[in-house]
């Protein structure tokens, strides 16, 4: 049965009164992840907004067992949890690594790559708010071209985002998927599927960040949707090398594959205040090319 707003499990593993900012997409993504796992998991979290969300000792807002671990070590920490559980013969618990884009694309890539190459049995979710938001928005390997940040303050970032999902796919792991916090049911389905697969699974979740991206707190869902509708974010999954478009990206493809122009997405966020028309054109071409590639690759259209 496909997940819908009515049949979603009611129990909450993220408690109200946590420390996330208003309009935080990470909490939305995390909430549906834990629902999909029905709380039967041990989480490892590196330094990130998720650490802040988890609370301050002795009070935690998250009702699953969790290990906080240093920034660079998430993949290794997940490995250690799996190895420890296996050594003790404890079964039926999903090991979940939940890290931001800085902790995944940048400082954590080594330990994640090592763990994936060893094919350890855990689910890694990268929530991508496209910058070091926990430290007040500095540029990361996932900050988009043209975005102003604490460390690209005048000109905006001059490089493209690192395609972490493609890097993870190249590890030959059994399941790779992209999600958006604006499509929580798609995320829920993918986590549920990933739970049943053995080996390293990687899910990338686009999580718009109002204070970092400079848009109103009430518009998180809107910006997540715009990213998908413009093709800046493509929702897909790759299971055993079979590429499928999913959710809104699949619908877009089925309806003729016409994307919204990216211009409005950039013009309505404060972080792109210095983006040039040339950069927007360049990004539009980049989006078009990638979308074409995805349409060609999709096996389910």
């Amino acid at each position: 049965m496909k997940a819908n707003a009515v049949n979603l499990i009611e129990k909450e593993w993220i408690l109200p009164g946590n420390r996330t900012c208003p309009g935080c997409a990470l909490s939305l993504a995390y909430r549906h992840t834990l629902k999909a796992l029905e709380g039967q998991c041990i989480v490892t979290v590196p330094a990130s907004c998720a650490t802040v969300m988890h609370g301050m000792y002795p009070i935690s807002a998250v009702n699953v067992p969790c290990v906080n671990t240093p920034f660079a070590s998430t993949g290794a920490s997940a490995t250690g949890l799996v190895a420890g559980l296996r050594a003790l013969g404890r079964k039926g618990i999903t090991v979940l690594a939940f890290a931001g884009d800085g902790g995944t694309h940048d400082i954590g890539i080594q330990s994640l790559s090592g763990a994936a190459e060893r094919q350890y049995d855990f689910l890694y979710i990268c929530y991508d708010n496209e910058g070091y938001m926990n430290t007040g928005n500095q540029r990361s390997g996932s900050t988009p071209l043209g975005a102003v940040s604490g460390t690209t303050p005048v000109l905006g970032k001059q490089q493209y985002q690192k395609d972490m999902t493609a890097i993870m796919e190249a590890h030959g792991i059994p399941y790779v998927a992209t999600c958006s916090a604006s499509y929580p049911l798609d995320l829920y389905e993918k986590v549920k599927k990933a739970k049943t697969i053995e080996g390293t699974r990687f899910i990338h979740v686009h999580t718009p960040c109002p204070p970092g991206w400079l848009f109103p707190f009430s518009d998180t869902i809107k910006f997540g949707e715009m990213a998908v509708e413009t093709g800046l974010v493509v929702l897909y999954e790759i299971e055993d090398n079979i590429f499928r478009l999913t959710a809104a990206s699949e619908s877009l493809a089925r309806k003729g594959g016409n994307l919204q122009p990216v211009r409005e997405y950039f013009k309505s966020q404060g972080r792109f205040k210095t983006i040039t028309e040339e950069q927007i054109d360049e990004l539009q071409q980049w989006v078009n090319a990638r979308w074409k590639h995805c349409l060609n690759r999709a096996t389910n259209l």
Partner: protein
Amino acid sequence: MAVQRKSNIHILDGNQAAAIAAKLSRVQVVAAYPITPQTPLTEQLSQFVEDGQLKAEYVAVESEHSAMAVCTSASIVGARAFTATSSHGLAYMHEMLHWAAGARLPIVMACVNRALGAPWNVLNDQQDSISQRDTGWIQIYCRNNQDILDTVIQAYRIAEKVYVPVMVCYDGYILSHTEMPVDIPEQVDVDRYLPPYKPHTTLDPDNPKNYNLVTLANPRIGVDGKLCHGYMELRYLLQEALQNSAEVIRDAGKEFNAIFGRDYSNMFWEERNEDAEITIVAMGSLASEAIVAADMLREEGIKAGVLGLRVFRPFPKQDVVQALRKSRLIVVFDKNVSYGSEGATCSEIKSALYGTYINAAIRNFIVGLGGRDVKARELVEATKKAISSLKETVTNPDYPEWICHI
């Protein structure tokens, strides 16, 4: 008095001794990354796991930082974890060493002592482990390969009693690659000595707990109205655990003697020190060399003895004072240096003696860095030089002397 038991002597190098000790300790997760001179130890452990002699998860990690991260997380879920490294590997682990101790995880690590770059050098000194002095780990140094085997087994017993990780340090090549006779204990005896590991917290979805959460400086009230520790209190408890661990370390050594017939009930060991006027202090295999030097000095009528440091953290201040009470001159040889100051063990000795009735002169020599050979003859010459320096002044010099060609 040693217990009568059948000996089981094998000719082993230090790395083999450490690997066999880890196996006898029934470690459940091993995570290690190869680095000279530790490499044969990790190869041996992976061999034990692959041929079924050791029922453990062997994780061939992609870095030492990850090795310790695997160990911390495996230890948190309740598995007995082991790793080993040297030099740059230990330096790369530095962040995780703080986490292992801060989270009170009884991990045991073999540190095969090697010099640090730049420039590259793969040979022995103790700069690597001394540089990790303040990470909250217990540090024990071995003088020979029997020590290595026995100390790894004791380390688990100590670590799991006080919930503090233990670093078992031994000199690269001098011990790691040198074969000596080693008595291998019976598994059944080790099992009797070392009960299974009981973690202080469990990670269970049905009783969720959040480990290493952000903790404020001040105590904070929980949802149940109970006042819980702040960061500062947690740090105090780690210090207290190390302070109190001395007793546990002595007991572990005493109990080891009762079962295996080898005594480790002292935090350091002494040779020829009963009537010594001059005490040579050294740590690790260098202390064995110092015995030869003491004998040579005695042949010349100089009453020299040796204090071989074993436990460096916690530092056994009172015991050291007691052992040095008759010494007129203390000559400390360090295979490490705190740049701009002096050798680390010299600082410890000075600190232990300050404010006591002992006012022996102290002379510090830096020796053996980057594998520079240290001959007993050189220790003798340095000691004689220290003796004649007393004619000029008893005041301790500001800086150590180096036994090198400058």
